[in-house]
């Protein structure tokens, strides 16, 4: 609702008589930032606080100081879990970031063919519920898997499985950020370099890499925190290998010990706060890449590099598609591995799930609303933080709040929402159990990556646009609506699709929030898998994947249309 207000302000502001405003431009900026902070407090900070504050309480709610922390830190398994979590996350980050960067480079800076398809293929993991990767990996590398020999006698159940699955899971998140970082570049720098006869390797080192530094660092922290906080994959495929997120799961779901779950949640926040501080430091040194005089880079044909990059992308995309293809294939199998007769029966969800296909439609509605409202909020918010100059403390705080959700396991966000929105004293508690709460929760849960994508795109735009507007006495909201939004359309569509597909696949937070009429497809998948009907779970997951791919294709089509109309000025 508040984003509707913000949107309304922009629309009325865009009317042609801005000078007769009763509020000064600075006051409007300050007001909007205040609104943003209030909104983020309500959907992120307060729900989290209402769970995390339980870390200093005992089971009955009495204050016990730091006793829970003392208990937790004296548990011998903690050190092992902490070490395991950090090791797995570091390894996954070290593999994913170079992969994602190279892939993004091929998508943005080469003349490789079929870029749209390659982009869509690498985003596949984000299109699929994470359970699907785990199902696939057990079918491929499990003790009955057809490629189990490839692990040389090691088991997929443990660190190997976790790392492989996390790489697949994190790749698209890192890719989206790196594509945003590499998509905009000033062609003049490259022309100058070429005119000076600079060798390509040196151009890469001195022009390309510094320009993409922000994206690289952001994506490294995104991957690290995503892996540290994910419990879905370790829970299914982690075997004996304990990590912090499964510790939280054991405390909360296994023993309903909310205080101890909150303690683990706070331990998990550490990497996020670190990420925030590093991000601020890097940001100070980031220079806008796309000045108002910039000329968009048009990649030149480089036969050798283009074909090498095509081979690389083919390998990565092939691995991703192959892995998920196995799960789709599994959805047509009667009983793996003992009865491989193909069947369509697994798609007749009425047999496994009392509400049949209903959860699918609920998910579709929920994801569409998340994309619609979320994109508006995230992009407007990022603009206010990046491009306005008023109320520095407010913008700093909003930036901090925007970075928080990624560091918190979905489990913690979901429970926080229960505690906060279900409280009898909360005037908003009528929202509880409705579709609206699922939408709000999903926007909050996936805020960070969407925010980083918007920020990365905005950072690459020269502040001169605002400066020129100011000297022409055009308020920032007109610049926002007439210049920033059209230029950033590709990133905005990326954000919308990102929010949509995550809304379709999310489980960990919404499992505590869905009501009797708002059961989601992703939750139905978990239920069907728990009930042992793995093929039906794979079938529902395949339906989700297809839908998400449809959304992505729609984006590609729209993007082409938008590019054709709004980005034509970029081409000389």
């Amino acid at each position, binding site marked *: 609702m508040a984003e509707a207000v913000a949107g309304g302000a922009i629309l009325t502001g865009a009317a042609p008589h801005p000078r007769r405003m009763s509020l000064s431009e600075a006051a409007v900026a300050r007001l909007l930032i205040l609104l943003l902070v209030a909104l983020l407090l309500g959907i992120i900070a307060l729900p989290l606080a209402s769970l995390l504050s339980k870390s200093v309480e005992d089971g009955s709610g009495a204050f016990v100081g730091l006793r829970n922390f003392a208990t937790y830190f004296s548990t011998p398994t903690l050190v092992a879990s902490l070490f395991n979590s950090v090791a797995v996350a570091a390894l996954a980050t070290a593999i994913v970031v170079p992969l994602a960067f190279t892939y993004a480079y091929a998508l943005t800076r080469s003349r490789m063919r079929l870029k749209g398809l390659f982009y869509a293929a690498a985003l596949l993991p984000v299109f699929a519920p994470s359970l699907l990767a785990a199902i696939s990996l057990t079918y491929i590398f499990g003790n009955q898997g057809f490629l189990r020999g490839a692990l040389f006698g090691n088991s997929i159940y443990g660190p190997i499985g976790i790392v492989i699955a996390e790489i697949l899971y994190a790749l698209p998140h890192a890719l989206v950020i790196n594509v945003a970082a590499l998509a905009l570049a000033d062609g003049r720098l490259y022309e100058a370099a070429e005119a000076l006869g600079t060798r390509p390797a040196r151009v890469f080192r001195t022009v390309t890499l510094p320009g993409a530094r922000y994206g690289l660092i952001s994506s490294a922290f995104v991957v690290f925190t995503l892996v540290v906080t994910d419990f879905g994959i370790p829970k299914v495929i982690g075997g004996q290998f304990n990590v912090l997120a499964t510790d939280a799961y054991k405390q909360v779901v296994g023993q309903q010990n909310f205080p101890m779950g909150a303690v683990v949640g706070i331990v998990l926040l550490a990497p996020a706060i670190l990420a925030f501080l590093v991000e601020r430091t890097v940001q100070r040194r980031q220079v806008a890449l796309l000045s108002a005089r910039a000329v968009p880079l048009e990649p030149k044909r480089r036969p050798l590099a283009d074909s090498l990059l095509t081979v690389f992308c083919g390998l990565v995309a092939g691995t991703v598609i192959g892995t998920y293809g196995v799960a789709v294939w599994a959805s047509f199998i009667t009983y793996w591995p003992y009865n491989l007769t193909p069947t369509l029966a697994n798609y007749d969800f009425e047999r496994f799930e009392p509400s049949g296909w209903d959860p699918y439609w609920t998910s579709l509605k929920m994801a569409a609303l998340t994309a619609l409202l979320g994109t508006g909020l995230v992009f407007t918010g990022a603009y206010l933080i990046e491009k306005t100059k008023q109320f520095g403390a407010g913008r700093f705080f909003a930036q901090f709040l925007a970075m928080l959700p990624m560091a918190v396991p979905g489990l913690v966000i979901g429970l926080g929402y229960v*505690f906060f929105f279900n409280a009898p004293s909360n005037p908003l508690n009528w929202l509880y159990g409705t579709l609206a709460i699922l939408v709000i929760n999903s926007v909050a849960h996936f805020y960070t990556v969407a925010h980083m994508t918007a920020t990365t795109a905005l950072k690459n735009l020269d502040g001169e646009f605002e400066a020129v507007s100011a000297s022409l006495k055009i308020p920032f909201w007109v610049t926002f609506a007439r210049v920033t939004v059209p230029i950033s359309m590709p990133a905005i569509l990326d954000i919308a699709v990102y929010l949509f597909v995550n809304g379709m696949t999310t489980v960990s937070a919404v499992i505590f929030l869905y009501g009797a009429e708002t059961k989601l497809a992703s939750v139905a998948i978990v239920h069907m898998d728990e009930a042992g009907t793995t093929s039906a779970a794979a079938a529902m997951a395949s339906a989700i994947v297809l839908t998400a791919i449809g959304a992505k294709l729609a984006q590609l089509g729209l993007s082409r249309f938008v590019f054709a109309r709004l980005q034509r000025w970029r081409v000389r």
Partner: protein
Amino acid sequence: MRSWITAALTAGLVCGLAGAAAAQTKTRLTIYTALENDQLAPFKRSIETKVPEAEVVWVRDSTGVITARFMAEKDNPRADMVLGLAASSLLVFDKAGLLEDYKPAGVDQLKDTFRPTKGPHTWTGMDAFLGVVCFNTAEAAKDKIAAPGSWADLTKPEFRGKVVMPHPASSGTGYLMVAGWLQSMGEEKGWAFMDGLHANIASYLHSGSAPCVQAARGERVAGLALDMRGASEKSKGAPIDVILPKEGVGWEEEAFGIVKGTKNLALAKKVADWGATREANELYSKTYAIVAYPGVENTPPNYPAGAEKAMIKNDLGWMAENRERVLAEWSKRYEAKAAPKN
């Protein structure tokens, strides 16, 4: 032809309106449950036949999730009843003062183990579920492993790295097994047995049914899991035997209770009355062999015979009181040496 279509449409409309009118007089009763998906429709039908003014609305999830959710909502409960949830969870709710004291009609004729022996009547048992062994005969034949007749057999070296069981800290099924061994063998022998078993365990899984599913898929040879999951996997075509080891098996029960402060108390009481009837127990017995009502007997397809005799003497109160201590000891023994095996 056209008049036929019109007639059909009119009939449909009339039925629809009548249905809508009937629905309007019904009160929605929200029930939190961990029943299996395929049980929900028949349970709803049976309840609504007996209590026509109620419209049952299920919120269903796994035992751990639904229990955590209920506890998280305790300041403003959203459920009218809980039904088909582990008795240990209801004991947790009861301890937090969240359940209404109501003795359903005819509850006294239920078997003793299916109702509270002392104090207020806050919960009523429905059926018992057992911790059994799902044994994959196809994989065992490849490795020439004989079927385990006893728990002790599972500690033999040929099972090394081939056994999975639920993690007792994540799954109620895992805990009922550990509690079962400690109660039936005595603490000392129980821990000694688990030391031996631990050497063979490939992994402790975070779900009560996953071990059996893994055994059914041939990922493992033996999975310690819920009885019902074993029976249903076998019915789906898995080459498994559901084995009740001869020392006896640990068990728990499903139960129901009314949430304190519900706006639909009168209606909830009627549903609770239904829950203690013979008719309801016949429904329970379609999935579970052992139910609360004496004389209701049915062995679901592929369910192991002699289940009632295999049940150990189990004290639900002991399980609740000793949970933290047992889990701490378990964690100290088996989680500290986290070295992953196969």
